[in-house]
């Protein structure tokens, strides 16, 4: 079961919308597929990011992958604890493993993302 209150992308990111703020992370499925995550590179604060473009890097023992912005906006906070403890992406992807907080540029973008039911259907197919 994935958290019901989040929105999801086909690239396996989740986003939590609170007012005009979005919290972003990767899903449990993504973390499981990547394996043990060993390094995370996040965008600098103040940077404007565009939906579905690469904004960061996630490196696991298996592979290096891009982190995509699920929505457009300005980076207002990033999870600094991940640089010392990237394993939180594996152990608590929806909680302590959050990655970015964005100030939303367009509130309607999040509505167009998948809900929990649609995302579960996507991962069940894979």
């Amino acid at each position: 079961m994935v958290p019901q209150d989040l929105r999801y992308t086909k690239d396996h990111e989740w986003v939590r919308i609170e007012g005009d703020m979005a919290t972003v992370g990767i899903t449990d499925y993504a973390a499981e597929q990547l394996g043990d995550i060993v390094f995370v590179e996040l965008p600098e604060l103040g940077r404007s990011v565009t939906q579905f473009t690469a904004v960061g890097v996630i490196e696991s023992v298996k592979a290096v992958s891009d982190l995509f912005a699920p929505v457009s906006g300005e980076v207002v906070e990033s999870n600094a604890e991940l640089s010392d403890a990237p394993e939180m992406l594996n152990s608590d992807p929806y909680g302590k493993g959050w990655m970015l907080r964005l100030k939303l540029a367009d509130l309607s973008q999040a509505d167009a993302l998948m809900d929990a039911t649609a995302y579960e259907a996507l991962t069940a197919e894979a």
Partner: protein
Amino acid sequence: MTAAGDRLGPTLFERSRPGRGGGKVPHPPKDALARIPAGQLRAEGPRLPEVSEPELTRHYVNLSQLNYAVDTGFYPLGSCTMKYNPKIDEWAARLAGFAALHPFAPDAVAQGTLQLLWELEQSLAEIGGMKAVTLQPAAGAQGELTGILMVRAYHLSRGDTERSEVLVPDSSHGTNPATASMAGFKTVTIPSAPDGGVDVEAFRAALGPRTAAIMITNPSTVGLFEARLCELLDAVHEAGALAYMDGANLNAIMGRFKPGESGFDVMHINVHKTFSTPHGGGGPGAGPVGVGDKLLPFLPSPRILREPDGRFRLETVGERPTSIGRVRAFVGNTGVLVRAYAYIRAHGASGLTEVSEDAVLAANYLKARLSDVLDVPFSRPCMHEFVASAASLKAATGIRTLDIAKRLIDYGFHPPTIYFPLTVEEALLIEPTETESIETLDAFVEALRLIVAEAHADPDLLHSAPHSSPVRRLDEATAARQPNLRWSAMTGSQTPCPD
């Protein structure tokens, strides 16, 4: 402790005793230190280990015997073509005429080497169906960069300045997008179709006036021949772009498929895979690049030229202004290229065709025999390698591909490539090559069959594998998160192989 564990033994630093050494090197004169300007003297001596010559020799020989190599056993590392390298190629490379030639030797005294390199270029051009070849690049990745820089020079020479994108299928080698980026292009990833080939719809949607080139690995990284190749290459050329062929998997197609004849404009060749030169290890490599007519003017300089009187010479500086210039000192890593030449001449055209046929046969044999042991996602005949998957086994037992790979070490085999390609879950990429006997292939199948049985009966045995190796399973995640690369005396919990 096992015999191997004993050999792992203390480091040279731990063996060090003050004043111990070889002692057979002539001693410097007593006033040697006084002759060195005071400012250049170290405050204290270097902290090097002090050991005797036999201690030093035994230390390294024992370490070398822990090595797993093609010369000690089966090494089915997919995408890497770990074939056995004939020893006669080593003999050829050590001939003094090649090995002792000074890199600054004038052309007049380097005729033998220049002739060998010129002939090697001709052979590789024929194998690839290309017009000409450069031997300069020092590795496959540098070959790729050389090829894509020539693509860039080609478009710019035509005043075509808007081509900023390189299309790369998602099953390609990781070096392909890296090459495109290094050469200043934007990489556009093309997804695979369910049959493992390039998704033609997505490819056509991405192709356009901004496309500089497409980079295709054929056979692909899942070991399949690109069935829609003609359609792809026709569309590429219609759009004014060029086609780059990653020749990493050339071992599958020699004598059967010449990339240049199918329309590829440029390709690189990994001589360490197909032509029996040593693999990596940080040593010298070679990644020759072949080109068709369009890219001929842009080849790196200096090219090796044969004069009408049969003598060979290197191009002079500025002789061919369209060249992208030099990409490597001198004429490349000659010692490696001599081995490739020896391999090609020893086999001849029919021998090389047989190499590829046997490599494909061995892979299909293994694939068929393993199809009731592991998942085999692509059922159509493979080329020189194939993908298996432990996805079903993982669902049933919790045993992952990593556990299988580690357990294979206990059975005396080097594991295949794992978790690559990324497009297949719990992937094992298996490439037996043409040099293995049917008995070896059967023994490998039997080992995997036993391991799958163990996965059901005693999964913990696999979780904790390997059991018989000099070191036990390494903690790769901690090693990557906290890389500690400085030596310090091993104590207690840090000591490897506690058993």
